[in-house]
């Protein structure tokens, strides 16, 4: 690992102003992804701004929403009694990600900013448009079992690896950020982006902006929710496909529904068409299957990951069935 300077910021404003001056500077919090990327020389910052002393760790239930500080640990949120009660889908998704040691270190903001686990991105001997723009994509025509089936481009077929983000996309969360130009708010579903011709950009954060918190508006998704994660082993592996389902049922009729997938695109993949189709319908296996077929329209495989087309549809049906039966 290249050596670097490290400074400890004591306020969000000082963190932003410190990083503003440096070209090759980065924020660090949990470090569970960044330190790994630095060891592999995928990123090599000259300076790190340690933000772990900032006062951004609280989970606060406010009028009409919950606010979760960007530095709240993944395990802290997953095991918070009120989060489990009011946003069980988020708690389930967090518990499905990583290992307990990593959840104790990793923060909410860092989870959002983690990079793809595409092996071509990690291997500096291979071409990767995300790591080195215009160098090519090793995964297209290469080993691409883990890769995208939705929204990919000729430049990049990598997926975003987070579980937490799939739940937050489903729950219509918002992201609060602070940067050199001041504070602003980004809809969670607009935070991550599709690769297009610029896969080096994972999200819509502007240069040197800092995530300060996320907010989830209150909802009725407290009972019939399920996060289904399909992976190569039963725990501690990234998703091949995951599905977040939240149903608001009244006498078996679907009042409201949220559906999102993970492991299938460069961003958490919200299934709005399938949601619209399900609204107002009475729950049944047939309806769930139709919704799954609708959701999978436009999906395409790249060879090794063709199985995701069938797996995706089955996972959606299964997750809806489990959520409805709770």
């Amino acid at each position, binding site marked *: 690992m290249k050596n670097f300077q490290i400074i400890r910021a004591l306020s969000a404003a000082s963190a932003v102003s410190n990083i503003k001056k440096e070209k090759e500077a980065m924020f660090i919090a949990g470090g569970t992804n960044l*330190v790994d990327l630095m060891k592999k020389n995928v990123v090599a910052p000259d300076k790190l701004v340690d933000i772990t002393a900032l006062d951004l760790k609280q989970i606060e239930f406010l009028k009409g929403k919950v606010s979760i500080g960007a530095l709240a640990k993944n395990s802290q949120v997953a095991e918070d009694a009120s989060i489990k009660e009011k946003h069980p889908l988020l708690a389930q998704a967090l518990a499905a990600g990583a*290992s307990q040691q990593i959840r104790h270190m990793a923060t909410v903001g860092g989870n959002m900013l983690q990079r793809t686990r595409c092996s071509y991105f990690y291997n500096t001997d291979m071409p990767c448009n995300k790591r080195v723009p215009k160098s090519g994509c090793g995964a297209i025509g290469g080993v691409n079992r883990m890769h995208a089936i939705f929204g990919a481009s000729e430049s990049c077929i990598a997926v975003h690896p987070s579980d937490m983000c799939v739940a937050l996309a489903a729950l219509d969360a918002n992201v609060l950020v602070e940067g050199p130009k001041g504070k602003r708010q980004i809809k969670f579903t607009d935070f991550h982006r599709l690769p297009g011709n610029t896969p080096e950009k994972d999200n819509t954060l502007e240069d040197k902006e800092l995530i300060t918190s996320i907010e989830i508006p209150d909802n009725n998704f407290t009972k019939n929710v399920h996060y289904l994660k399909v992976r190569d082993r039963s725990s501690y592996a990234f998703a091949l496909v995951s599905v977040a389902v939240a149903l608001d049922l009244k006498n078996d009729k679907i009042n409201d529904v949220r559906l999102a997938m993970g492991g299938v695109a460069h961003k958490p993949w919200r299934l709005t068409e399938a949601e619209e189709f399900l609204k107002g319908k009475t729950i049944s296996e047939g309806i769930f299957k139709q919704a799954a077929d609708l959701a999978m329209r436009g999906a395409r495989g790249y060879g090794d990951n063709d199985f995701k087309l069938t797996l995706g549809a089955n996972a959606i049906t299964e997750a809806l069935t489990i959520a409805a039966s709770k």
Partner: protein
Amino acid sequence: MASKKTNPNKVSVEDSNSRRDFIKKSGLFTALALTPPSLVMASENKWDEKIAEYLETVPLSIEVNGKKHNLNIEPRTTLLDLLREQLQLTGTKKGCDHGQCGACTVHVNGTRILSCLSLASMQQNAQVTTIEGLSKGKKLHPMQEAFIKNDSFQCGYCTPGQIMSGIACIKEGHANSREEIREYMSGNICRCGAYHNIVDAITEVKEGGKEI
């Protein structure tokens, strides 16, 4: 050749000069090859300002197994390397060094974390417990005893991480069933496949109710 053999003093002087020259020219490179503790010493004693300039160190106060240390470290030193290379606490193992195996699990301020992905420079005033800090004198920790009794390891390389994680698993309240233990121990990989006996050991300690 013959004159050199008959005049050893001359040879000695020449050798000495050339060595000095060599050291002078290659001072920086020699410094770069030094191990971190010697480098810290070099930098503290201002042996070569170039060294300090090139490899800047930061001060760190850290408590490991109840013992306080005031050190100067490179910002890029991981907690794992600090423990193993500078404090000679080699009980904590380097398995994958990329957060995938759990062999480097230690407790920081009472919480289990991966020392390979933690920068030591971010652990200011932290209290660290490693496998070496568990026993009380010659009396092993209940989890260590349970691992021996239940034959919970074969090669033993993952064992320090498994034990640190197993203790935390119980303290966190995630050892209420074999399934829950397996889920919350999933970050500790055992290539020998001693999982069944590891779960036995954790279950025994949990049910034994001894203070951990």
